[in-house]
């Protein structure tokens, strides 16, 4: 396995730095290469969005960082550092001291992510006391403060309530407040709004973005919603079939996507005021390939408009355009740029007709 991401520089003050990370999961049919050669980092106060379709490995990536993968998964990496400390060489006990303390995680489904038989207060206080931040009374005060912060009214009386007494949106707010109990430097939010009503989704995202600024945390937001990414991301990593196929700043990736997959994804978003009512939105035909067993060539080639013979052989090189700007494709930057212009011109003609 080539780890051509090992040498991409990252600054020492990165909260989380990942280079050449692979996650292999052994399943009955063989080895599932869930994440291959992944590289990203986040600094304090920065928001990184990891984007991709279901099953592309974005949740696995976050669970790998948290050390929460099941026992049949193996993580290897050239670099996997959190606050300068190597996560791979840590014991489960050391990792558990970081989890919920220095790093927090918010999950997709707030309906099932809180324990149904304990009160909100109990579950919030527990995380504070566990990490030795203070006694039960201090934990209670902090819980009330944070519940108010996340926009929950009558915070004190909520502490005595059970999860089933709250709506999905409120439960997700409780999850967020709970993960903030110990002032973490990193929050990983794994599709935090997917399970919520559309009207609530925007509220929760705004809340996350606001809290991230206020508490000056690093935020990794995992999503398949590019609209969300465009609004809150500083930097973006696009994942496809376990590979980070394109990385860069939000502006770069949205304005000049290089990878055919990213170009296709961005084509799928309607732009208010620009996209005609009733116009044909872009779509990417085909499905994500199975990832079990050893793979060769580019994983996207079966769905790619520009696929050629050399896409099927060997490892796909990473085209580096800047420190954290790059994409994984055999097509060079100039040709990629030309392809993008051509397809945009074509779309403009189609819209004009």
């Amino acid at each position, binding site marked *: 396995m080539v780890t051509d991401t090992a040498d991409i520089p990252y600054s020492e003050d990165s909260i989380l730095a990942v280079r050449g990370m692979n996650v292999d999961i052994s399943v009955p049919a063989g080895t599932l290469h869930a994440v291959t050669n992944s590289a990203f980092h986040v600094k304090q106060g920065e928001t990184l969005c990891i984007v991709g379709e279901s099953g592309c490995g974005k949740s696995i990536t976050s669970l790998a960082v948290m050390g929460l993968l099941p026992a049949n998964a193996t993580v290897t990496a050239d670099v996997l550092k959190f606050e300068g400390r190597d996560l791979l060489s840590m014991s*489960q006990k050391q990792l*558990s001291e970081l989890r919920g303390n220095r790093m927090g995680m918010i*999950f997709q489904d707030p309906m099932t*992510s809180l*324990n*149904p*038989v304990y009160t909100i207060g109990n579950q919030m206080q*527990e995380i504070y006391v*566990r990490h030795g931040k203070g006694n039960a009374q201090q934990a209670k005060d902090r819980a009330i403060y944070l519940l108010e912060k996340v926009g929950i009214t009558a915070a004190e009386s909520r502490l005595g309530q059970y999860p*089933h007494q709250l709506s999905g949106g409120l439960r997700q707010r409780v999850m967020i407040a709970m993960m903030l109990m110990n002032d973490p430097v990193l929050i990983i939010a794994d599709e935090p709004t997917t399970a919520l009503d559309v009207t609530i989704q925007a509220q929760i995202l705004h809340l996350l973005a606001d809290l991230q600024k206020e508490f000056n945390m690093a935020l990794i937001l995992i999503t398949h919603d590019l609209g969300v990414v465009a609004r809150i991301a500083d930097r973006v990593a696009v994942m496809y079939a376990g590979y980070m196929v394109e990385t860069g700043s939000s502006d770069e990736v949205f304005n000049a996507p290089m990878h055919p997959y990213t170009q296709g994804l961005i084509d799928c978003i309607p732009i208010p005021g620009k996209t005609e009512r009733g116009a044909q939105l872009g779509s990417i035909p085909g499905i994500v390939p199975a990832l079990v067993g050893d793979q060769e060539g580019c994983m996207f080639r079966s769905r790619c408009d520009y696929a050629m013979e050399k896409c099927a052989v060997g490892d796909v090189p990473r085209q580096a355009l800047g420190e954290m700007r790059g994409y994984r494709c055999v097509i060079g930057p100039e040709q990629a740029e030309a392809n993008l212009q051509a397809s945009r011109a074509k779309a403009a003609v189609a819209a004009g007709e």
Partner: protein
Amino acid sequence: MAQFLLQRLTISLLVAITVSIIGFSLLRLSGDLAAELAGEDATQEEIAQVAKAYGLDRPFHIQYLDWVGKALQGDLGRSLFTNEPVLELITTRLPVTVQLATYSLILALLVALPLGVLAAMKQNTWIDRLALSIAVFGQAIPSFWFALLMILFFGVILRWLPISGTDTWRHFIMPTITLSTFAMPQFMRLTRTGMLDVLESDFIRTARAKGLSPVIVLWKHALRNAVLPVVSLAAVAFGFLLGGSFIVESIFAVNGVGFLALESIIRQDFPVVQSIVVFISFVYIVLTLLSDLINAQLDPRIRLT
């Protein structure tokens, strides 16, 4: 909570009435009680006399209401055999049965809960298989056979334990082990499946994401969710241990309710049999109510329904 309690009490009362009617009718459906009491060679006239003496010639619903009316005042009639009041017969035998059932239930749970949790955590390892083998053994071996083997081994050959009676705590060891061997496997299996389910759930992942220690994740977050069905089962099993230990009580000559029931059936002592049947049903009703209340304590979602 008050509404929940009221609702459960109403249901219990309805069940109690139904059970008492069924219990009362079953005995009368099992044959002509007067004919059986009068003996094999009795004439029609003698049978009629017996029926009149015991009130068996009255219409069914009058007999039932009369019996219920007296029962509510604590009068369950007298034994046909010893002429003692039935209530007294049962209450003098009850403590030893309750004692035996309690020991057995506690022992069964003490073994089943840790074993079930361990089996779930070490799923598909030798520990899991050993636990399941123990469960199969406990369920497959007939209680009377297991009891006899223990008597032979510990009582007769090694002479470590007394084989009959209830004089000291040592007398309780073998009956307790016999009964709990029978009850343990179902608790163990249910704990194991419950834990396997719960360990997969999202809130366990959350608990781990909070950095809680494995001990807390397991015993605080997982077990409480996993034991809910075990509580319900334990209530039923306790009822069974209280009323259904006929065989074990007879083998170890434990002079309890089960033994009394067996004796009374053989002696055709119908007031006693009928009272024990209804009594055991009531025990079940009370225990089910109790398990509902415990479950409501453990799981706030139940309190709302």
